[in-house]
């Protein structure tokens, strides 16, 4: 064997798996011997570390504890929701159908009995008094005095009349 040994053969020789021919070459070739001794030294170091020193500590990150249970929790939640929905669907009965004519009648009765009295309530205590329209003479008089008559003004405010857009809302009790 004239050529130098490849790395694989030298590593196997260092690990005790070399053939006699390879070992003979290592003994006679300085280059291979140097590499071989280096591998032997490395192997001894590795073996010594593995034999004598305890392994380094590897602690589980705390979030992994939560992450591990996360899919289980999610799956349980989904199952609970599905079972609950199924139960609700099973238990609940369909609502009785309402006759359309009876429904219309009920609406009309409600409008008559409840809404109408509330909207169109006329009590004896409340009385709306519409103001009297202003006569043409008042317009003429106002024109001569460079003014404007009070339109639709109640008699109570006629003497001190001024333009007042909300005059229609005044009522007399």
């Amino acid at each position, binding site marked *: 064997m004239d050529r130098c040994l490849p790395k694989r053969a030298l*590593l196997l020789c260092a690990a005790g798996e070399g053939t006699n021919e390879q070992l003979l070459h290592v003994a006679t070739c300085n280059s291979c011997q140097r590499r071989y001794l280096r591998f032997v030294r*490395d192997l001894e170091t590795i*073996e*010594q570390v*593995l034999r004598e*020193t*305890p*392994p*380094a500590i590897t602690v589980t990150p705390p979030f992994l504890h939560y992450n591990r249970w996360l899919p289980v929790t999610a799956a349980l939640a989904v199952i609970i929701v599905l079972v609950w929905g199924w139960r609700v669907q099973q238990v609940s009965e369909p609502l009785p159908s309402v006759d359309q004519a009876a429904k219309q009648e009920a609406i009309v009765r409600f409008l008559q009995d409840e809404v109408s009295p509330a909207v169109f309530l006329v009590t004896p205590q409340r009385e709306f008094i519409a103001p009297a329209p202003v006569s043409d003479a008042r317009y003429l008089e106002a024109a001569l005095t460079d003014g404007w008559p009070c339109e639709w003004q109640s008699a109570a405010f006629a003497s001190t009349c001024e333009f007042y857009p909300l005059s229609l809302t005044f009522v007399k009790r």
Partner: protein
Amino acid sequence: MKTAIEIDANASCESLFRTQYPRIVRLCRLLLLDAYEAEEVTQEVFEKLVRQWQSDNTIVSWEAWLTRVAVNACHDRRRSSWWKWWRNGRVRTQTDEPKDHQPTPEERMLGLEQQRRLWSRFQQLSPRQREVFILRRIEGLPTEQVANLLGVTTGSVKRHLFHAVQHLQKMLGDY
């Protein structure tokens, strides 16, 4: 009343326990990369030893028997380790440094950082590569015996050993 043979047998068993227990613990620890599980498996192995010792005392090499039983027990434990991981909530947790641990000359030479990297590299090996490397280089078993123990060919042992050594040696070369 115990006979002299029984006393002698018990003494031999205890002697075997004393001499082999550290070796089996180390072997299991290297195979499982978990100090707690290694202790458990070692106890199981020695329970089997006691039972075997009482039933069949004709085994020639108890050291080889212990190695084989320990390797098989580690195989079984590794197969079920996913369940233990799930149940206990811990990934492969290594042992802490002993309290009375004194730095050895080897530690001073290499340094803790290099040791850590070497262990990290060792953990990256496949289970089979780790087994072959441990049995062949740490336990010093011959290739044929390793192949027989693991149920593989000698060529497979050499191949796994080469890949393991190359992987570990690369770290030292890079350092």
